[in-house]
């Protein structure tokens, strides 16, 4: 009797001590999540303010606190400038006690933020940036590349197009880190699938007119025009390609297209195009349910990035809750032991190089006749297993995965 009383008291004391220490391990008594993305430029629709709102949705769904400690979100616009992104991240860590950073669109900014987070030893989840360098030559123990990368896009779309008969390729490439990475990865995938690349042209980011580049592409006599660009650049290139009759002699392959791009171009200009994405709102009952909540707020369907923003926030908060601390190293370790199982993906896990390994989907844009409801834009053609979608160990240049 006495013995059980004593042991119960001890257990109670231990438990309360443990709880106290766990609470003490939430730095500054608040879990601070940062989100730095393009909030106002050419990539703002695919992630942007609605991405920040998706993170807020996740925080609210999590209950707004971890073990009684408040969760806060800081949001900043990097204006597509790597130096702005890096200095904002540094400022938040030094002055605001930031615990984790979610990186938005634009690979140039993504790479610069990864560098800061490595230096400060805080977890960094990159979502909007596509460059595979984040988990290859520039990989870091603190970076998690969550949604997609240029390798996964190339491995998804290029072989499918080559298989459908598009053997010769010409690339229209955005002239910065992301575009060149995407072109290199797609070239490898095209060659491996038995096709060939006959040329390429590099257009400056946010060019106002693509007709000149398209004419060059057309005179190459290639069958496929690979668009190694994103956002507004892809939209304007596809528009001009339709106008100049390029689409009569060449087929377009958008290497990075989001549903927002298809929406603003319309199905007439995009029908039949192949694209690869990590998520589509109309995939399952679960995705539709979440997408509906998003739609009610924004009157548009979420992109894969916005879904990933939500998922990554949940994933991080779950890890913090499980170990009772927001200590950078410990959460980082915990996340790398956990699985992602939610409406975004099933059975996702983080590989040694930082890639979150999950299935990718090859979609084909529907014809106007096939599309029955608003935002009903894609047929899911095939699923690429996570293990086959991203860089292989042989291809990777990441020192952490050797």
């Amino acid at each position, binding site marked *: 009797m006495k013995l059980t009383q004593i042991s119960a008291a001890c257990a109670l004391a231990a438990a309360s001590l443990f709880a106290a220490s766990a609470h003490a391990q939430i730095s500054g008594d608040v879990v601070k999540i940062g989100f730095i993305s393009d909030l*106002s*430029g*050419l990539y*703002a*629709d695919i992630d*942007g303010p609605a991405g920040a709102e998706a993170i807020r949705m996740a925080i609210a769904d999590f209950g707004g606190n971890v073990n009684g400690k408040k969760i806060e979100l800081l949001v900043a616009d990097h204006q597509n400038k790597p130096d702005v992104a890096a200095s904002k991240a540094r400022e938040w860590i030094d002055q605001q006690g930031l615990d984790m950073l979610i990186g938005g669109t634009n690979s140039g900014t993504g790479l610069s933020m990864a560098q800061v987070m490595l230096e400060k030893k805080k977890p960094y989840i990159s979502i909007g940036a596509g460059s595979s360098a984040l988990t290859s030559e520039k990989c870091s123990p603190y970076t998690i590349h969550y949604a997609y990368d240029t390798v996964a896009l190339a491995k998804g779309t290029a072989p499918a197009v080559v298989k459908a008969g598009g053997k010769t390729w010409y690339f229209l490439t955005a*002239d910065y880190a992301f575009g060149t990475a995407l072109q290199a990865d797609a070239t490898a995938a095209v060659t491996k699938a038995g096709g060939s690349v006959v040329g390429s*042209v*590099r*257009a*400056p*980011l*946010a*060019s*106002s*007119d693509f*007709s*000149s*580049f398209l*004419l*060059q592409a057309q*005179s190459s006599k290639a069958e496929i025009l690979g668009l190694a660009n994103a*956002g*507004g650049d892809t*939209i*304007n290139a596809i*528009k*001009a390609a339709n*106008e*100049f*009759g390029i689409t009569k002699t060449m087929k377009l392959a958008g290497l990075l297209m989001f549903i*927002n*791009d298809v*929406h*603003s*171009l*319309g199905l007439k*200009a995009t029908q039949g195009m192949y694209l690869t994405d990590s998520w589509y709102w109309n995939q399952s009952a679960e995705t539709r349910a979440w997408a509906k909540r998003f739609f009610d707020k924004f009157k*548009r369907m979420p992109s894969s990035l916005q879904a990933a923003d939500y998922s990554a926030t949940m994933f991080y908060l779950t890890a913090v809750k499980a170990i009772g601390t927001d200590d950078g190293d410990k959460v980082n370790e915990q996340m790398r032991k956990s699985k992602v199982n939610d409406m975004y993906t099933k059975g996702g896990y983080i590989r040694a190089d930082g890639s979150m390994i999950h299935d990718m989907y090859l979609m084909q844009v529907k014809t106007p006749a096939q599309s029955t409801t608003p935002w009903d834009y894609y047929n899911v053609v095939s699923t690429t297993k996570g293990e086959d979608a991203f860089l292989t160990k042989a291809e990777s240049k990441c020192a952490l995965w050797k």
Partner: protein
Amino acid sequence: MEIFGIPIQAFLGQLLLGLVNGSFYAMLSLGLAVIFGLLGIVNFAHGALYMIGAYVAFVALDKFGINYWFALLISPLVVGALGVVIERTLLKRLYKIDPIYGLLLTFGLALIAEGVFRYWFDVSGQSYPVPDLLQGATNLGFMVLPNYRAWVVVASLAVCLGTWFVIERTRLGAYLRAGTENPALVQAFGINVPVMVMLTYGGGCALAAFAGVLAAPVIQVTPLMGSNLIIIVFAVVVIGGMGSILGSILTGLGLGLIEGLTKVFYPEASSIVVFVIMAIVLMIRPAGLFGKEK
């Protein structure tokens, strides 16, 4: 036959495309030159007015079913009226002080307009269809030229030359030019100078809107379309010589051609070639190619 290693067909095609882009530069820099020449205002809101012009056309079609040809008329009128309001309520207070204030004011207006349209329409923007009459393309042998682009060149050249004619060759233009040289004296002759200045600003804004409607079917109508273009257009004005009307037209077309060729020979530099030329011109002729030293 080849020129610098490029087949002559491709070369001609690129020149033509350069001309298309150049006609946009010409039309926008013309409006800026008129406003600067006659009001001394560096109108940084010009890009925003161009964007608003395109959106007026978009909304007119989308909400009211007003077609392209009417939009080409209505949009400049709406934006011109907006310009008149801006001139009456804001700019008119600034004529007596340093021109830098006019620049800051119009820059602020541009940022506000961009923010408001971003809030209303999102950044991805909207597609504006090519009017039925100008659908399709003509095969010129060396390239396929969309009919609409050909129309852009014709329309903008007509507008540019018309504006030049009014200002340089008519009595009204003479009053305008005199009014800016010596407002007090012209006023003494019984000419209402403030109204003239107001209409000039409105006219400059209408030119920007006209360019916006012309551009709408070619590029995505987005709140950022103006700010992507305005910096280049300013460089065009500086190269041509601030305030020189014919200068801005010729420079606009010329730089369009040069930029087009850069896209072939060294595409990566196509977004900066205009600024390189601007730097060189400023070193050799600080008043611009067609400007007069004061």
